[in-house]
C-alpha cells in the first residue's frame, strides 16, 4: 500500500468540562486510502465529529498527529472540503454565488469561476435554482448546494459531518444515491460521519465504528459490495449481513456503557 491519503496517528482530544476533563478522543489511529469512501458511525459523544474537525483543521488535537498526504494538518485548506450538517450556506448569496465563494477567495478568474460553478450546479441538479437564495430551497436542495460548493474548490478530500442528518428519510435515501453517483463520476477521498447504520453501509468502502467514553475506534468493517449501488442492494442478503454486523457493533457497546 502506498502512502495513505489521510493518516491519523494516536490522536487524542481532551476538552476541559468544569474541573474535569472530557476525553473526546482517546488515542485514535486510522488510515484512509486515496479515493476511498469511509463512513464513521457511532453513538453521540464518541468523538466522530471531533475527529472530522481535526482533519478539517478547525480543531487541534491534544496529542498525536493527523496527516494529509503525509503532511501534518495545520488549519483549514482548500484541498479538504467540508460539508456541515447545518448546510452552512451563506444566506445572503444565491446558489451560484455560494458555489463561487471558494473560487473567489482563491482568485479564480470570473469566466472560469462561472463555468466551473455551472458545471457543479448541474452535477447536483440545481441548475434551475442557480439564482435562488438559500431561504427558498428545501433542506435537501440546500445540502446539494453545499456539496457543489465544496466540490467547486476542487478538494481531493471531502469531509462530511452528518450531512443528511437533518433530512427526512426519503430525501436522505435519494441524496445518498446522488452522492454516490456524483462521487463515481468524480472520485475523491471521502470521510463521511453518520449515526445512521444503513447510510454508513450503503455508501462506504469501509465502515469505521466508534465507541464513546473515551472516544475510540471499536471496529472496522470492510464493505466489499460493488459500485454502482442502488435501491435493490439495500434488500440484498449481503447488505443485510453487513448492516447487522455494524448495527451489532454500534448497539452492543452502548449496552456495555450504562453511563451513555
Amino acid at each position: 500500500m502506498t502512502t495513505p491519503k489521510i493518516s491519523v496517528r494516536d490522536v487524542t482530544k481532551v476538552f476541559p468540562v468544569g474541573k474535569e476533563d472530557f476525553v473526546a478522543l482517546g488515542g485514535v489511529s486510522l488510515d484512509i486510502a486515496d479515493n476511498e469512501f469511509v463512513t464513521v458511525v457511532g453513538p453521540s459523544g464518541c468523538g466522530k465529529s471531533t475527529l472530522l474537525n481535526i482533519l478539517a483543521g478547525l480543531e487541534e488535537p491534544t496529542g498525536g498527529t493527523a496527516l494529509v498526504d503525509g503532511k501534518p494538518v495545520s488549519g483549514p485548506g482548500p484541498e479538504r472540503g467540508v460539508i456541515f450538517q447545518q448546510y452552512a450556506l451563506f444566506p445572503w448569496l444565491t446558489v451560484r454565488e455560494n458555489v463561487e465563494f471558494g473560487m473567489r477567495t482563491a482568485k479564480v478568474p470570473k469566466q472560469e469561476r462561472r463555468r466551473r460553478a455551472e458545471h457543479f450546479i448541474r452535477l447536483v441538479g440545481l441548475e434551475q435554482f442557480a439564482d435562488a437564495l438559500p431561504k427558498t430551497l428545501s433542506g435537501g436542495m440546500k445540502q446539494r448546494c453545499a456539496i457543489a460548493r465544496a466540490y467547486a474548490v476542487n478538494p481531493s478530500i471531502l469531509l462530511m459531518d452528518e450531512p443528511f442528518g437533518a433530512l427526512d428519510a426519503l430525501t436522505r435515501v435519494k441524496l445518498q444515491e446522488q452522492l454516490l453517483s456524483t462521487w463515481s463520476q468524480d472520485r475523491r477521498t471521502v470521510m463521511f460521519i453518520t449515526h445512521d447504520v444503513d447510510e454508513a453501509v450503503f455508501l462506504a468502502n469501509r465502515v469505521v465504528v466508534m465507541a464513546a467514553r473515551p472516544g475510540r475506534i471499536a471496529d472496522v468493517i470492510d464493505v466489499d459490495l460493488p459500485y454502482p449501488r442502488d435501491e435493490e442492494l439495500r434488500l440484498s442478503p449481503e447488505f443485510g449481513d453487513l448492516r447487522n454486523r455494524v448495527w451489532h457493533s454500534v448497539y452492543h457497546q452502548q449496552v456495555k456503557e450504562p453511563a451513555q
Partner: protein
Amino acid sequence: MAVISAEATRPAKAPARPRKSRTLLVLNIVSIVAGLAIWWGLSLAGFQFPTPAEVLASAWTMIGNGTLVADTGASLGRVLAGFALGSVAAILVGFLMGWYTIARGLFEPWIQFFRTIPPLAMLPLVLVLMGIGESPKIFVIFLAAFLACVISTYQGVVNVDRTLLNAARVLGARDGTIFARVVVPASTPFILVGMRVGLGSAWGTLVAAELLAAQAGLGHRMQSAQLYYDLPTIFVGIITIGVLGLIMDRLLMLAGNKLTAWQESR
C-alpha cells in the same frame, strides 16, 4: 408607536392574508378618523384644545411665512448630522468590539456606563463645554444614536453563526475576507435594528434639546409658542415631529428590508 412596531415586525413579504391586512387598514383609518372626531368634539365642547381647522390654518400661515420649513430644516439637519455620525461611529466601534477582544475590553466599560445616562442628562455639561451653537445639540444627538446602535452592532458581530465562519475558513478564506464577506453581511440585520432604535432615540433627544437651547427648530418653535399660549402652533409642531419621525423610520425600514431580503422569515 405600538401600531408601527407591530407592523414593522411582520415579515415584509407575507401577502398570505390580504383580507386580514385589509381589515387592519380599515380599522386603522376608522381609528384615526374617530380620534380626529373626538379631538374636534372636545375642542368644540369648551376643552382648551384648538380645533383641527385652527391647527390647519396655523400650519398654513407657518408654511406661508416660511417658519415651518425653516424650523423643519433646522431640526432635520441636526438630527441627520448627529444620526449619521453616531451610526458610522457605532458601526466602527461595534465591529472592533466584536472582532477584537482588546477593543471590547477597552470600550465596553465606557459604553455600559454612558448607556445608563440619558443623553439629555449630558446636555448641561455639553452646553457649558461647547457653547450654545449647533455643535452641542449635534453632539447630544450623536451620543443618543451612537449608544443605541453600538451594542446592537457588537451583538451582531458576536452572534455570527460559527458554522458560517467555519464554512468560510474551509473554503480558504482568511480573516480579511471572512470579515468583509461573512461578518459584515451577517450582522447587517442587527446593525439596521440598531440604526432604527438610534434614529428614534436621536429624534427624541433632538426635540428635547431644542426645547432647552435653540434659536430655530421645531422644539424651539413650540417653546416660544408656549410663552404666548399659542396652542395651534404647538399642535403643528407636535404633528410635524410625529410625521417626520414616522417617515424617517419607514424609509430606514424599507432600506433595511431591501438589504436583508435574504433572511429566513423572521
